[in-house]
Structure formats: C-alpha cells, structure tokens
C-alpha cells in the first residue's frame, strides 16, 4: 500500500535548485534510505516531507492525503533530528510525553504509550533522568522513543547515528532495523554512509547534486549500478572506458602471475591487508588507471609490489553504465 508520494517535487533556495523535479513512491512498512554526499539535497527532501520546508513546486501526499500545505504539527509523521533536539528541561519521560500531551491523548493511554516506547527502546532505568545525564547513544534512543510514542504513520530519520562512534553505530543500526520490523511503520532514513544504507534499507535512493541517480534494492544498486556516480559511491568499483563505459567489482577480478594471456596487464602498486579481505592495487600501463582486486581469502600466492601481473574477469561481470 502506498504511504508517501512525491509528485514532481522541486525545491529552490534563493533561485538555486537544490532538489530537481523528483517523483517517488514509498510503501507502507518500507525502509527507504536517501543516500548521498552532503549537500545532495537528501535532508531537504526529508524536511519537505516533515513540513519544515515548502516545495517550490510539486505535491506531497501522505497516506492518500495532500499535505503539501500543512505545517509540521498537522502531519501524522515524526522526525528524529540529527542532533536529537531533546528538550533539556524535561526528563526522558516528559520528553516522550510531550507529543502525546500536545495531541490531548487521554492520561491512561499516555502512560501506556510512554511505557511501551520506553520498553521498546530499553530506556526503563533512565526514565527519570534529564538529557544531559545521558550518553549520546542513550539520547538517541530517547529521540526515537519520543517519536514512536506518537504512533506516526511514517518515521523520518535525519542521520540519526551520525554523531555516534563506530561501534555504537553498528549496534544501533541493527536495533533500528529490528525496531522498524517490529513496529511495521514506514521509515525514511537519510544518511551519507553507504554501508549503513546497504545494511538497513529495503530500497535506496541514491542522490547527487539534487538529482536522483538510481532507486533500487541494495542488491540492485550493488550489482547493477545505472550511473557512474551510483557505481562508484556504493562499494568499491573499477570503471573502464572502452566502446562503452562498464564497471567490474574488485571481487569479480582475478589476478594472474603470467600477464601474457590476460585481458589487461599492469604492475602491483600496493598490497592492502584488511583482515577479512586482501586487496591488490594494480596500475594498468595502457589505461593510466588503477584497478583494485579483492583476493580470495584462500589465495596463498606470494605477491610483491612492483611485480608484473595480468588481470582477468568474465564478460558477464561487466556492468554497463550510462546510455
């Protein structure tokens, strides 16, 4: 079932387009991620859905209703802010209660919903604390609890894990995904971290310079990137410009110690050891470019910097890019 629909939505700031005309449909219960570098317009799209920005042209529909002209407080969705924006003078409980109070939910139901939200986000021992008494990860949980207590149709998340360190971010990614499955509500997630997007999303919208580069499942986007940007932004890729432009993932490339029969040949420029993967950077003599090769973890051959090698791949692993 359709939950959010953007129809030719466009946004200009001071005459400059920041979001080019965009149409997008988001389903109920879907985890959709807007992925792109900073300044690509992803946050602006999120803020337009939330109601903090007005589209210059176009229409936004939420669950069949045109909400383009409604202010944020009249839209049945909630935003988890990048820096949480918790109310400093209220306890965890009072922060969660705020939205319920504004909507004049009966007291008994308020208590029930607060208890649910606190339990789902594992905040029970912290309910009476103030935000400044919590760690970053705990504040993040409060921001999510405060949003989901409202039972929104859609939860919008603006780089919610951006301020946390890597280990905590990894844990919370899993928790968020689990929470989304349990609640069954639509999540629209904004991030610049492609790994995060790949891991959590049902569908990813890749954006660059205010334009959509590609929309698809993580698998689609990884295996069949449609544009040069999509091919290089998500995961590592080797792009070749011949009659057509095509890309081959590092793990699809094999190295051969005998360069003579290989498709291309070059010199090993660097050997990168990353624990679970082992990579060679090979400089191709003719193309003046580098190719990254991910070695099979069973590869026991001795490679040396400066060694002349051949690189090979199967034709079916070439992904055509562009028109």
């Amino acid at each position, binding site marked *: 079932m359709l939950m959010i629909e953007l129809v030719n939505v466009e946004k200009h700031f001071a005459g400059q387009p920041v979001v080019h005309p965009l149409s997008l449909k988001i389903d109920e219960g879907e985890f959709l991620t807007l992925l792109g570098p900073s300044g690509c317009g992803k946050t602006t799209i999120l803020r337009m859905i939330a109601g903090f920005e007005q589209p210059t042209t176009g229409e936004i529909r939420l669950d069949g209703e045109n909400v383009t002209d409604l202010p944020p407080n009249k839209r049945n969705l909630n935003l988890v802010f990048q820096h949480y924006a918790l109310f400093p003078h209220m306890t965890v409980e009072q922060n969660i209660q705020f939205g319920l109070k*504004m909507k004049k939910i009966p007291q008994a139901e308020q208590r029930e919903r607060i208890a649910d939200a606190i339990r789902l986000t594992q905040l029970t021992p912290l309910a009476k604390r103030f935000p400044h008494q919590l760690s970053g990860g705990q504040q993040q949980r409060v921001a999510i609890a405060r949003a989901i207590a409202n039972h929104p149709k859609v939860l919008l998340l603006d780089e919610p894990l951006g301020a946390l360190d890597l280990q905590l971010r990894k844990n919370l990614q899993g928790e968020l995904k689990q929470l989304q499955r349990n609640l069954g509500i639509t999540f629209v997630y904004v991030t610049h971290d492609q790994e995060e997007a790949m891991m959590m999303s049902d569908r990813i919208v890749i954006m660059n310079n205010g334009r959509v580069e590609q929309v698809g499942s993580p698998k689609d986007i990884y295996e069949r990137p449609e544009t040069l940007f999509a091919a290089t932004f998500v995961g590592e890729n080797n792009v070749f410009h011949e009659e057509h432009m095509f890309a081959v993932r590092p793990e699809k490339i094999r190295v051969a110690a005998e360069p003579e029969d290989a498709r291309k040949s070059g010199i090993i420029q660097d050997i990168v050891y990353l624990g679970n993967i082992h990579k060679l950077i090979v400089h191709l003599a003719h193309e003046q470019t580098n190719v990254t090769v991910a070695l099979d973890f069973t590869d026991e051959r001795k490679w040396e910097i400066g060694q002349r090698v051949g690189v090979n791949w199967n034709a079916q692993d070439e992904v055509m890019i562009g028109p």
Partner: protein
Amino acid sequence: MKRSFGIIAPVVLWLTVFLVVPMVAVIAVSFMQRDELGNVVYSFTLDNYARFFDPLYLGIYWDTLWLSVLTTAICLLLSYPLAYYISNASPNRQKLWLILITVPFWINFLIRTYAWVLLLRTQGVVNNALIDIGLIQEPLQMLYTKGAVLLGMVYTFIPYMVLPIYVALEQMDNRLLDAASDLGATRWKSFWHITLPQTKSGIMTGSVLVFITTAGMFVVTDILGGAKAQMLSNIIQNQFLGARDWPYGSALSVLFVLSSLIIIGLFNRALRSSYEASKEARV
C-alpha cells in the same frame, strides 16, 4: 594549598576592602547611638531596630517593596515581547534595536529624569497637548505622584530586563522549536512549554537586577515623587545626609539588605525547577 591561595589573594583582598569592611562597618554602626550633634557614640543599643517598627516606617517599607515588585513585573511584561521580537529580527536589525535600547545610557541619568519633569508637570508637554486636543480642561496632576515614580522606574530599568532576556533567547537552540512543532505543538504551545522554560535564567537575572536597583533608587523618587512618594532608600539617604543619624540609617540599610536577600531567595526558589537542581547536582 599555598599556591591556590596566591591566585585568589587579590580577589580576597578586593572583596575585603570593598565589601566586607563597609558591610561590617554598617552593621557595627547600626547597633550604636548618636549624640545631639550627630556624632556616632560607641555604646551598644537595639533602639535603631526598634524604631523601624514604627507604623510610619513600616508603611514606607511596604510601599518600597510594592513599588519594586510592580516595577519588576511591568518591566518583565514589556521586555519579554520586545526581547522576543528583537531576537527574531534579522542580524542587522538586531544590532540596530540593541543600540536603540542602550542609547539612553549615553545621556546623563539626571538629565533624562528631569526630562520627565518637563513632560509630566502641570504646564508640561503632555498636559498642554491633552488640553489642546480638548481631551481635558484642567491640567492633570501627574508629576509628584506614585504613578510618576513608577513610570520613571520602569523607564530607567527596562534595559536591565531586556538585555538578559534577549541573551537567553539568543542562546536557546531553535531546533527545539522544530522538534516541538514536529511533535504537534502549535506556536503558542511551543512558546509556553519550550521557549519560556528555556529562557528562565534570563527572566531571573533581569528580575533580580530590576528589583534590587529599584528598591535602592532614591533619585527618581526625589525628582518625580517629590515629598509625597518616599521610599526606604530616600529615608536612608536622609538619615546619612540630612538628619545626621548614621546609626538609624545603618540599621535601615541592614534591614533593607536582609529583606532583599530573602525576597530574591524566595523568587529563585519559586522559579528553580528540578532540571536546574539536577544540573547543579552534577557540577
């Protein structure tokens, strides 16, 4: 231990010379007597404090407190919307407004207060204008009333209220208002539940400043209130300069400082929330 004392020694010295010594002197003198010529006689008495409980002085004391509370309240009601408006203006406009608010400080305070005399007296600008447009036949007695004193006080001290509130509004994180709106709050509710509690420190600072300075002010009362509207500070001033009764003036000063402290303490307590308590507990 020794080293840290070396660092704070100048502060201790400064406080001793300019705060502790005068305070101790005032407290000491308040328990002494005076002779017919107005010299302080060094013998102990409680008479100075007993005299304060004369209905005449109690009445003036009450008037002083009431006028100070009223001045503070009016300043707050006028300043908050003004500070709010300024903090929401464009940066250039904000600068302009702040300059306009501080412009009166560039002019001598006595001259500004006498200007009110020109405006308010029976032959003054306001009365003449009202007669000219036919609103009144006889000039109104505006000068030398409690109303004139109140007006003068509010006029004098309003910047002390506007500036701290403006600073508090500026320091507030506006993303909190976005969050409130996202959670369903109307603009008015956001103001009531977020902006107001977040700017309480500014309200507190402004109110204490205005209250104390109003209660201690005697020039405005002298010029705009005449003999009719006397305040405690006028009596104190008179004891030291006119009546030459230093012990009684000192006793009144001590009582005045004590009651100010109590009122400020009560006020802080009323405004302080568990949130501020939790913040202080952490430090």
